[in-house]
């Protein structure tokens, strides 16, 4: 028994040393910094939003994921607009947000960006899904608590960042060989740039030549894969209906917006046969009495390549152009 315990302890010790070594090589330090995993942007936005609703009797909102965050500059739409858009924010989280603030402020109009991951079969039973995870502060339930255990989430994030999966390891080696990274956003400090909630990372991320990147490393164009986890036909509009019924009840005008996407996103969708699923979702939405503004296929003529920094996220130049289009349409429809 003694030898057994001794050898296991020795193995564990050496293994831990190996893990520590890998951590040191990756970070240049042994200090564990959980702060970098905290969604500071989110909490800053909550703070800004509290100030914002104190100023006016009624407001307008832009909601959605990072795609929406990058696509519309709220300040350019007017002083009543606030962008509560966050990384991977899904429709259920937007619903929780509205539900939380429904008695605190009158909301006139919402522009909600919709993406495939707003129509999953289940958020709870999916091992990988798109969610922001910080929305439990607006109410705990079986979905929002998934992001609540911050210590485990931080540890998982730390682990994933430092100790790579087989596929990621191989992809990383491939990328090293090909000397290619789509972009390196971690070098820059992220922030909420305006008091109206604009936090687009396109402020510091430069446009890239998607054509060349695709030729070198088509596998790095994989956002469509992430957006369609647990999404299938026929579509599940349960979470959408939840949002719609709440906003109807509150008398809020909602514009469901589908943002522009690059041709490589569409190509990826087509290859994976996701286009059919997405079309089914759109077909099912068309049967509802709602307002949808669909700009997804705009890229071919008016929306050039330098308006994107990856398959789905627009550059600052793209955001300016798109916000102008939205502003114009809002103006036209309000007349």
């Amino acid at each position: 028994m003694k030898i057994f315990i001794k050898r296991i302890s020795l193995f564990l010790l050496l293994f831990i040393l190996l893990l520590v070594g890998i951590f040191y090589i990756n970070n240049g330090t042994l200090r564990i910094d959980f702060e970098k995993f905290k969604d500071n942007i989110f909490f800053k936005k909550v703070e800004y939003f509290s100030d914002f609703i104190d100023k006016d009797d009624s407001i307008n909102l832009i909601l959605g994921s990072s795609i929406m965050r990058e696509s519309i500059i709220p300040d350019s739409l007017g002083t009543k607009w606030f962008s509560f858009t966050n990384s991977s924010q899904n429709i259920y989280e937007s619903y929780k947000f509205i539900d939380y603030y429904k008695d605190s402020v009158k909301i006139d109009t919402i522009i909600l960006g919709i993406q495939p991951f707003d129509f999953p079969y289940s958020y709870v039973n999916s091992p990988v899904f798109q969610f922001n995870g910080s929305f439990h502060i607006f109410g705990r339930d079986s979905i929002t608590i998934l992001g609540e255990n911050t210590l485990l989430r931080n540890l998982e994030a730390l682990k994933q960042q430092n100790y790579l999966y087989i596929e990621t390891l191989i992809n990383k080696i491939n990328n090293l060989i090909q000397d290619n990274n789509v972009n390196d956003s971690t070098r820059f400090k992220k922030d909420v740039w305006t008091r109206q909630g604009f936090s687009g990372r396109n402020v510091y991320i430069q446009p890239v030549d998607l054509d060349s990147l695709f030729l070198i490393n088509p596998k790095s164009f994989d956002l469509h894969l992430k957006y369609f986890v647990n999404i299938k036909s026929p579509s599940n509009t349960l979470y959408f209906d939840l949002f719609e019924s709440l906003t109807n009840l509150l008398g809020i005008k909602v514009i469901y917006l589908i943002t522009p996407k690059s041709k490589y996103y569409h190509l990826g969708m087509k290859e994976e046969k996701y286009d059919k699923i997405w079309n089914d979702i759109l077909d099912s939405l068309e049967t509802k009495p709602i307002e949808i503004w669909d700009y997804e296929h705009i890229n071919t003529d008016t929306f050039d390549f330098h308006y994107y920094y990856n398959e789905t996220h627009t550059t600052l130049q793209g955001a300016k152009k798109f916000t102008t289009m939205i502003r114009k349409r809002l103006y036209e429809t309000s007349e």
Partner: protein
Amino acid sequence: MLFNSLEYFLFLPIVFFLYWFVFKKDFKLQNLLILISSYVFYGWWDWRFLSLIFLSTVIDYFVGLKIHDSQDNKVKKTYLWVSILFNLGLLGVFKYFNFFIDSWIHLLGSFGYEQKSVWTLNVILPIGISFYTFQTMSYSLDIYYNKLKPTKDFISFASFVSFFPQLIAGPIERASNLLPQILSKRVFKYKQGVQGLRLILWGMFKKVVIADSLGIRVDKIFENYQSMDGSVLLLGLVYFSFQIYCDFSGYSDIAIGTAKLFGIELMSNFKFPYFSRDIGEFWRRWHISLSSWFRDYLYIPLGGSKGGKWMSIKNIFIIFIVSGFWHGANWTFILWGLTHALLYIPLFLIGKNRQYTTNVVAENNWFPSIKELFQMGMTFLSTTIAWVFFRSESIFDSFNYMILMVSKFSIPNNERSGILFVVILVVFDWTMRKNERNPFNYKFKYFRHLVYVFVSYLIFAHFQLINLSQFIYFQF
């Protein structure tokens, strides 16, 4: 509690320490510790269902004693039926009730009798119920057939029923193998301990690295099969073959390995089934504890192969269909069992169903011969096609899946990344194929240690601290 959870990594060393250092002197105290640990282990999921295990334990404990004490065969038989009806009754209520009601309504509907209100049970399936009910039934059956004497030690019997390593997903142990070990003093053996750890490491690798990685791909393909290319559907099936194998055999390996740490030997459940050369060999290597259970307690009592060819064929159909039905209350599982019966019977009819009973493929060679490769390929292909029934939501989906797989076939452009996991698994399995109970038993010490580190690293990297995935066989 899941084997692939953080809780288990804390739970196991604590129980191990108490078992060997605190309660070492008295095996009855060790049994009490096993019993408490097992109830904690199961109750971690849902403590309310502990009552079912307890009830099953109490019934079979007394039934066992009564069968043994009774001199009258009729009385013995009556007590045996008490055990069988109770255990199958549990399964019937919790697992099959709604299926029978739905099927009955469907049948009536097809004759034009529409049922307006349907009474079904709103219950969840207690995990592992099919495993522990079969285990306790085997106790009463073994006593009835005079293979075993009952124990009067209730605590030890209860720890046999609920022994945590194999409680939830097997191997389904026989009382004649496990109970004598529980009723005698255990001694820690270094070699056994090392083998146990190796099995845990290997099982964890199969589950966390291979099965879970393939599972994501399988879910995606099966959920959207109507819009996928035929080649991707084929890949989906191949991935599922390996997912279910790694998931289930991974669980068994962790169970056997954990038991070894406590000085207990459980029976083997998987012996590299995808290296089988025909379907007969496959069934001697796949879920051995269940297939041998059905052989001993169903096939043989039904007459086995002694009543002539037609009787044998009938019995083969019965055990394959029952085996399918054991897996789940759905027609898809029954069809899966039926498919295997149809694959097995031709082999039986030409008398070649038992030609590979002892040796493993290419036993003394590095590589298989062309013939062996062909045989393995054909067996794998047959079992893989049969998996479509097992994985699909309905029979319609199963056939539709296969039709689309053939009619839309092309060279796969996507979803190929899962092949990497299949290759890694096959290479490891091939090098270890001679002994399923002692993986990583490589001659060269440094190479072996390097493999330990490599495998441990991948488990660590793929291990999920949040959103843990369950083992597939928990649902059966």
